[in-house]
C-alpha cells in the first residue's frame, strides 16, 4: 500500500487557551511535557505518527514504502490527556484518551444505561471487548486541590472496532456520557480509531449508525449506503 504525505503548508500546531466565562481551558498536545504517556512497547512508529502531524517543510511530497509495521503486531496502546480544565474551586479535571482497552465492565454498563441503551449480558460484553481489535476509551479524572490528592476516575466514553487485521473493520458501540457530549469527544474517539486502522492499511471501515447520528458520522467522513447498498443482518430466532 502506498502512503502519500501531502503537505500543503508548513504546520506548527498552536497551543492556545481560550477563556470563556468560568473555566480555564488548556488545549494540550500529545507530545508536550507532563503528559502521562504510557506506551508499553515504545517503537519508532508512534513517533512517526506524531511527526506526520507536525511536518515543518513545505512543498515536499513523500511517498513512503508500505507500512513498516509488522503485520502481526497488535495495535500499540497509547494514552494521553486530551483536555484539562481547572474549575473555580480548584478542582482539576482531565479527560484521558486510552487505546489500551482497559475497561471496567461495570463502568461500561453504567455508561450504556446513561445513554439509554438496552442492557446486554456482562459476560458477553466483556468477551466482545476482549476480542475486539481496538478499544478506545475516555476517562475523566478529577483531582481535588490540596495535598490529599483525591482522584475520581470515571469512564465517560468508549468506541471499539472488530477487524480481520488486514482489510475490514467494523466500528461498534460508540458512546459518550451525555453530560460530556457536544465537546468533540465522540469525534476524537472515532477519528482515533479511523487513524489507527488506516495506519495499518485497513481500508474498509464500516459502521451501522442509528438514524439520529447519521449526520454525526457524515461529518466525520462516512457515507451512508455507499453506492446504494445496505448491510444486512441475520438474527437468531428466539
Amino acid at each position, binding site marked *: 500500500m502506498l502512503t502519500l504525505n501531502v503537505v500543503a503548508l508548513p504546520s506548527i500546531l498552536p497551543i492556545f487557551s481560550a477563556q470563556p466565562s468560568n473555566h480555564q481551558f488548556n488545549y494540550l498536545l500529545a507530545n508536550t511535557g507532563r503528559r502521562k504517556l504510557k506506551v508499553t512497547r515504545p517503537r519508532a512508529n508512534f513517533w512517526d505518527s506524531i511527526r506526520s502531524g507536525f511536518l515543518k517543510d513545505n512543498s515536499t511530497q513523500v511517498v513512503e514504502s508500505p507500512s513498516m509495521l509488522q503485520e502481526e503486531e497488535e495495535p500499540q496502546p497509547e494514552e494521553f490527556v486530551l483536555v484539562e480544565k481547572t474549575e473555580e474551586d480548584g478542582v482539576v479535571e482531565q479527560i484521558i484518551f486510552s487505546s489500551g482497552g482497559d475497561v471496567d465492565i461495570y463502568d461500561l454498563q453504567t455508561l450504556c444505561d446513561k445513554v*439509554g441503551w438496552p442492557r446486554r449480558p456482562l459476560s458477553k460484553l466483556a468477551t466482545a471487548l*476482549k476480542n475486539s481489535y481496538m478499544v478506545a476509551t475516555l476517562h475523566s479524572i478529577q483531582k481535588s486541590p490540596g495535598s490529599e490528592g483525591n482522584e475520581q476516575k470515571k469512564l465517560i466514553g468508549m468506541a471499539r472496532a472488530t477487524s480481520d487485521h*488486514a482489510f475490514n473493520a467494523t466500528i461498534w458501540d460508540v458512546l459518550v456520557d451525555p453530560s460530556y457530549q457536544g465537546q468533540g469527544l465522540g469525534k476524537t474517539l472515532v477519528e482515533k480509531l479511523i487513524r489507527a486502522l488506516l495506519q495499518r492499511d485497513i481500508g474498509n471501515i464500516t459502521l451501522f449508525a442509528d438514524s439520529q447520528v447519521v449526520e454525526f458520522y457524515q461529518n466525520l467522513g462516512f457515507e451512508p449506503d455507499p453506492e446504494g447498498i445496505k448491510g444486512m443482518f441475520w438474527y*437468531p430466532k428466539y
Partner: protein
Amino acid sequence: MAAAAAPMTIKMKACCGYGGIKAMEIRWATRKENSNEVSTKLKQRIPIFISTNPSHINPQQLRDLYGSCNHSCHRFPKMDKMGKLVEPVDIKRLTIALSHSDLLVSVFCNKVDVLASDDDDCGNEREPNKGENPPVLGLGDLLQRVVPLPVVSPSTGMLVGFGRAVSDHGLTASIFDVMVIPSLRGMGIGKMIVKRIIRYFEHVHENLAINNGLPNLVRLFFKACGFGDDIMGSTTMMYTRTLSTHIECDQMVKCAGRKLLLVPPLNMDI
C-alpha cells in the same frame, strides 16, 4: 452521542469447539430447474466437499478463486473499463486476514464437474494444483466410473467456493468474501456456505447478530439466506473521505483499492 450499539443478546453459553457440527462433509449441489442456462453441458447435480478446516485452504488456490470470481478484498477496488479487477489479491495480507478470521469455509468439487463457461474458469481449471501429483487414474476415479460415489477431497478437487467470518465472540459476527465460481452458481453452494457460517455461530456463540460485513451487490443472495435489514433501522456507513472531498493542510492518505482515503490528522483541536 450514542451510535451503533451492538445488538442485544439473551443467553450465554460458554462453549468452545464444535460440539456436534461436522467440520467437513460431502454434500450434493443441485442446479435449479428453472435456470436460464440453455447449455446442457452444465451438470445438474454434482458432489461437493464443504469444509471449515482452515488447513484445507491453499492461499494460492484461494487467490485464484478471488480472481475467477472477480472479487476483491477492497470495497472500492481498482477496475478496468470492463469492470474486471486490475490487480490480484495480495496473498500476504490475505493470509493475515485468514488467520484472524474466526471461521473459514471452503468448498471443493471434482475438476471434471467444473465446466468452463468463461475465460477465467478456463485458465484455472486446466492449471494443476502445485505440489500435487496429477491423479491420472486413481482408485477413486475408477470407482467413480463403476459406482457414482460422491468422492471429492480438498487434495484432488478444485476450490470453487469460499466464505469467511470475523467475530468478537460475544455480540457480533461479520461475514466477508462469500464467493462461488461463476459456472457453479445457482446450485445452492453459496447458500450452503452462509448457512454453515450461521450454524457455527449459533452453536458456538449463541445469539450473535451476524451481518454481511461489507455491503456489496449481493443483497438478493443474502436475502435468500435469511438476512434482512437491521431491526433497529440502522444505516450502513463506510469511511470514504478522500482528498478531493475535504481540503486541509498536511494531509496523509492511504490507498484502499481505487480510493485514497484521508487519514484523520493528529491535532487535538477540540
